[in-house]
Structure formats: C-alpha cells, structure tokens
C-alpha cells in the first residue's frame, strides 16, 4: 500500500542544507548588526547622564523582556497590517537584530564603563583627543573585557534564530518540522537538527575561549 508518508532519504540533503544555510545567514546578520548597534548604544549609554539612560534603558528593557517569539509575530503582523508586508527573512532579521542589540548594548556598556576614569585621564594628559582616547584606549580595553559575554550572547542568537520559523522563514528548525510532517520520523530528524546546532555553535565557543586566552591582559 502506498503511504501518505515517505521516509527520510538522501534526496532531502539539499533541503536540509538550505535550512542550515538560512540559519547561518540570519544568525550572522543579527550578530553583526546587533553587535554594531549594541556597541553604539552601549557606548552612548556609558557616556550619557541618568535621564537619557533611563529613556534608553526602558526601550531596551522592553526588547529584552518581551519573548522573542511574540516580538516576531507582532512585528510581522504589524508591518503587514499597515500595508508593507515583508518577506520573513527581512522581518526576522530586523527583529532578531534589535533583540540582539538590546543584549549586546548592556554587554558593551559594561565593558566601556570598566575602563577607569583615571586611565582615560592619563591618556588625555598625554595630549590624546577625546576620540583618540576612545579608539586607542577605551575600545580595545573594554572590548577585551567583554569578549566572553559577547560570545555568550552570540551563541544564544544562533539558537534563538530557530524562533524566526514562526513567521515562515525556512531556517533549520522549520525545514526539519516540514520533514517531520512528511516522514513521521521526529526522533531522527530532531537529533540530527540538534547536532547541527551543536556543530555550528561549538567551534564558535571554542574559538572564543582561544581568543580570550590570547587576548588576556
């Protein structure tokens, strides 16, 4: 009897690899954009007074506290409702990047604030300008200090990217869900997918530890 379901086969490899590729793509976009934005916002917060910080902080708190899955659905529904529907990749990249930015900004803020005032004064006393001090002293020292936390956020972004599947982006988790519904082999597929996330994440965390040792000061 012909079954409605067909088992997993080698022909599915390309399909799975598309999912892997898409997961990597959206993760890289979110990590890069989130890091750059987070660096700017984190620096602005480290340099701002209490009032500005409170306003900034409230927005970031919202981004950090509302579950990502809700932000994704709300955003893609919202842009659709106002007549500018976005493809899932664009919508997902925007939401995931902002979400990442919210966490990264706190990481970087801590790093920039860890460089003591007296260290900066010493640099200024040598005749360095404000921006020279930031570029040559504050950024390099601050960034080294936050490397481990940065890595933690970056790794969680890769895993969080699975949630973008809810708005229809064909990343790894969504391709696997579709394969599961076709093959009815959830165990094999989910183990495989879990393994893929591990293979993507592990080298990164390993490289992070290596960098951390290398740049230790």
């Amino acid at each position, binding site marked *: 009897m012909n079954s409605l379901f067909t088992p997993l086969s080698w022909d599915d490899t390309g399909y799975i690899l598309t999912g892997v590729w898409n997961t990597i793509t959206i993760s890289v976009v979110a990590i890069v954009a989130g890091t750059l934005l987070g660096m700017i916002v984190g620096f602005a917060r480290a340099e701002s007074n209490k009032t500005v910080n409170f306003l900034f902080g409230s927005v970031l708190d919202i981004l950090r506290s509302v579950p990502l899955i809700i932000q994704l659905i709300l955003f893609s529904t919202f842009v659709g409702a106002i007549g500018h529907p976005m493809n899932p990749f664009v919508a997902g990249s925007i939401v995931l990047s902002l979400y990442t930015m919210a966490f990264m900004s706190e990481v970087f803020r801590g790093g920039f604030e860890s460089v*003591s005032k*007296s*260290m900066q*004064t*010493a*640099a*200024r*006393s*040598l*005749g*360095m*300008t404000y921006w*020279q001090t930031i570029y*040559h*002293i504050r950024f*390099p*020292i601050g960034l*080294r200090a936050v490397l481990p936390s940065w890595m933690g956020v970056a790794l969680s972004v890769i895993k969080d990217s699975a949630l973008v599947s809810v708005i229809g982006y064909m990343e790894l988790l969504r391709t696997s869900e579709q394969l599961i519904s076709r093959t009815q082999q959830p165990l094999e597929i989910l183990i495989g997918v879990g393994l893929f996330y591990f293979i993507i994440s592990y080298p990164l965390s390993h490289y992070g530890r290596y960098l951390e040792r290398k*740049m230790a*000061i």
Partner: protein
Amino acid sequence: MISVQNVHKSFGDLEVLKGVSLDVPNGEVLSVIGGSGSGKSTLLYCINAIETINSGKILVDDVDVHSKDTNKDKLRQKLGMVFQHFNAFPHMTVLENAALAPRIVKKMSKEEAIEIAKKELEHVGLGDKFDVYPTRMSGGQQQRLAIARALAMKPDFMLLDEVTSALDPELVGEVLDTLRLLADEGMTMICVTHEMGFARDVSDRVAYFHQGVIAEIGEAKQVITEPQNPLTQKFLSKVR
C-alpha cells in the same frame, strides 16, 4: 614658566582652592606638600586643564590654560603628567605604551616614535622590558613606565601627583631615583608628594598647602627643617 594667579576652584559647595598664586620658573623643582584635601592635587589637575577653574588665571609659557581659545590637547603635550595610579595601558607592551602618544598625537612615523620610546624607557631603566606587558611588572616599574611615557612627548614641564603613594615601601626608592635624575637634568617639575626627604633634598622650593591656600612657601631645606608657619610646623611634626 608656569604662573598660577589667584586661582579659585570649587567642587559644588566645597571650595578646594581659595586664591592660590604661584610661579614656577623653568628649571625649578617645586614640591607641594600638605594634608589630604588641602587642594594640592587639584592644583595640578587645573594646570593641566583636566579640571576647570572658577576664577583666576593659569599661564603656561604665557598661554592662558583655561581660555576658550586654547587648544587643551596641544597644551597638554607640553605638560607631562604622572599620577598616583600608574595607569599603564594594559593591552599594549611597554614599548607600545611609550610610543603611542608620539605616534598618534605628534604624528611621528612609527620608527621615530619607537626610537624615542626606547630612549626614554632606557632613561628610566626599563631598557630590558620593551616587549613585556605592564601587568607583568612591579608597581615601581609601572610607575617608571608612566614617567617614560610622559617624557616621550618631550614635555617642557612635569606634573607629578603623589607618584609614590600607591607603591610598596621597597619600591619607592627606584621611582624617586628616576625623579632625582630628571631634576638633575634640569626638568621643570611640580611634585605633589608625601616624601619629605625627597622634597628636602631634590626640590628647590617647597610649598605647604593648608585648606586651599599656600600657608608657606620657600627654599626647600628651610621649609622642611625650619618651617616658619605654625601650621607647617604642626603638619611636619605629624608626618615625620
């Protein structure tokens, strides 16, 4: 010459400098002594334009330090400053620490900057530490690095803010020796210090600060060994 003219400085309601006037001619070593909170460190910060002043005037080689038209970054190149905390840049080697400012502030070529940095590091006795990271060095070595880093900018004046206060006692000597060397070479220096022996032996004049004013200023030996003002006498009897 550094000329401080009737300078007042407040932090909020607290007036730290209450009309300080002082001239330091080229080649002179002036030690500034006094209790904590007497305003002596604040004066150095005001001379280097790290702190603003409320009234009065500070001239460095006839340039008005606190004038709006003065380029403070440019001015600071003339004024080498060393602090109580060494503030070595931890992400750079000793040589990079000393070569950074000549390269990026004075826009020297890398080779030139490194040459000057090497010379000044040898000057303070760190000729064998070029490639070491400062966190691997003792406090005394880090403080000598800070001195070399300031000297690499070829300053006309050195402002030293309690540079031995954060050091273990056995490391104080090597830093004072370095300062003595600079004094012998004719560097103009203002040293805020708690080292009375150093103030007496190395400086030309000593100023005693008390609650934001100069209570006594005069020839070094005289102020330290035969202070005229009862306040100076009381202070010195406590720190000896």
